[in-house]
């Protein structure tokens, strides 16, 4: 760990050090590193195949063979939770990425163009935001006839992009008034060049901090949808789905909800701590404002 630390530090110029300087930042980093390692090495770490059904051994308590017990179909809970980390990351990270990309594009256009186009885009952002996000997601998924990974990523991205779009718009509207943008325009640069060379790089910073803080929110959101039966289809082991079956058998086998809740909370807590440490390291001014989910 020490050598690794030094290695990374050497080219990360103090960023990592600042994150590690707080207890919660260190905890967050450790938790997230753990989750990512679990996700990468899931096939090696899982003691059983997560989809292997063993009906004679259903809802068994923790034993040496099944450390976390088994679910209602006799599948090994630990293996399912380990593979579930892949689903959590593979859905939430691309969803955030999609939201960020669409938000940045539309937000930059809105902020730079001003006028009618700006108003239209703002109206679009506010319209999407007029729906409570969870209800919007539930509706879209149902209307599209059920979820798969792609639908989930798109739906989660849709619930996120208006927020990022508004943020980028505010930034780029400010940047558009700065001297170097005027200079670029006066020098005869094309709109595309001004946008990509000047507006863009100077207005996307806050979005990335926001997006990092949003990862736990999205993981929760994806788990919530899957808890409601609208997540990745079975037999893929999503954490929310495992929680749901645990919830159904909460009276007879409470360890199912307990262990799956621990995994989910570990991930969300880790990303929150890491996100906050990252934000404080990048922009100490923002330190005080808590985030709304």
């Amino acid at each position, binding site marked *: 760990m020490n050598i690794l630390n030094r290695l990374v530090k050497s080219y990360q110029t103090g960023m990592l050090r600042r994150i590690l300087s707080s207890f919660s930042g260190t905890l967050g980093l450790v938790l997230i590193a753990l989750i990512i390692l679990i996700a990468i090495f899931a096939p090696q770490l899982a003691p059983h195949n997560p989809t292997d059904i063993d009906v004679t051994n259903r809802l068994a308590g923790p034993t040496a063979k099944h450390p976390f017990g088994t679910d209602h179909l006799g599948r090994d809970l630990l293996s399912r939770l380990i593979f579930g980390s892949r689903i959590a990351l593979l859905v939430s990270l691309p969803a955030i990425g999609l939201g960020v990309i669409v938000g940045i594009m539309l937000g930059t256009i809105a902020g730079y163009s001003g006028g009618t186009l700006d108003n239209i885009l703002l*109206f679009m952002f506010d319209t999407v935001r007029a*729906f409570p996000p969870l209800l919007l997601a539930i*509706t879209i998924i149902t209307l599209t*006839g059920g979820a798969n990974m792609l639908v989930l990523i798109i739906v989660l991205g849709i619930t996120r992009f208006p927020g990022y779009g508004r943020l980028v718009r505010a930034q780029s509207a400010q940047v558009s008034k700065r001297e170097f943008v005027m200079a670029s325009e006066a020098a005869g640069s094309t709109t595309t060049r001004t946008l990509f060379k000047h507006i863009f790089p100077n207005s996307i910073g806050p979005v990335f901090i926001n997006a990092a803080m949003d990862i736990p929110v999205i993981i929760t959101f994806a*788990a919530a949808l899957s808890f*409601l039966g609208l997540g990745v289809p079975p037999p893929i082991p999503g954490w929310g789905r495992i929680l749901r079956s645990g919830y159904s058998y909460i009276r007879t086998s409470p360890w199912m909800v307990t262990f799956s809740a621990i995994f989910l909370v570990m991930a969300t807590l880790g990303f929150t701590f890491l996100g906050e440490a990252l934000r404080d390291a990048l922009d100490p001014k923002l330190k005080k404002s808590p985030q709304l989910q």
Partner: protein
Amino acid sequence: MAQYTFRRFLTALATVFGAMVLLFIMIQFMPGNPATILLGPRASPEIIASFEEKMGLNQPIYVQFGKFMFNVFQGDLGRDVLTHRPVRELVLNALPYTIVLAFTGMGVAALIGIPLGAFAAAYRDSLLDKITGVLSVSFITMPSFVKAIVLLLVFAVILRWFPATGGGEPGNILDQLYHLILPMTAIAIGWIGYIARLTRAVVLDELTEDYVRTARAKGVSERMTLYKHALRSAMVPVVSFIGVGFGTLLGGTVLTEVVFNRPGLGTLIYNAVKARNFPVAEGGLIIAVFLYAFVNMVADLSHGFIDPRMRTE
């Protein structure tokens, strides 16, 4: 202020209109024929035709849209496909449960969170401050339905102190309160964290202000300085934060309602969506959008009322 109110009202109205258009478009793009979805794959062509006739599905799209908007603004949300009861009645029955849950949850959170945050600020870097800090983040981060499930497991399944599901017997207030406690707690816990953190941050900020120094210099006790001066001005952002939070909360009650199998707007929409009972889902969603827009507008207006700078954007 009047101008700001009017402008904000128009924005809310425009947003709601936009949301209705979006909703209508989403329904139009629904794969498959609404008639076969509602009537099942084995419905005969005659039944489908008469259904389309009855629902106006064979009319041009702009007529359908006009009718849709006209009905919405008349308060006619259509009828439940299964029971044929008016959707408006279903929504109006469910709504009080959600509103009570949101209000009591937020109220309890404010009652606990504000003093907790003030304490944490007053005893900055003390053990109490640190514990509050860690607990706040943990409670904020923990997914709401996980909190609900943990409460359900501990207090309803293991300890059996509270009922696990339902909203209580209609008309029996005590029984309804008894059923409210666990879901309310599940909602309140996270918001206690938010409010405590925010209060702490704002109070700490206020404590560096000149008027606090003046109060201290005049010999006002530390306790009075904190509660009478710093906390009072800190209330402005906290209250507006709570207002904005209500909007978020309305969406967030869905999961709590589902976990505790409690009646409410969230459960209504969720169950309707699951049963493909689209008129109910649609009606519930429309009301949710109206409510959401209304709450956000009130939050902005109260914010603008407290802080005039907000009015010029």
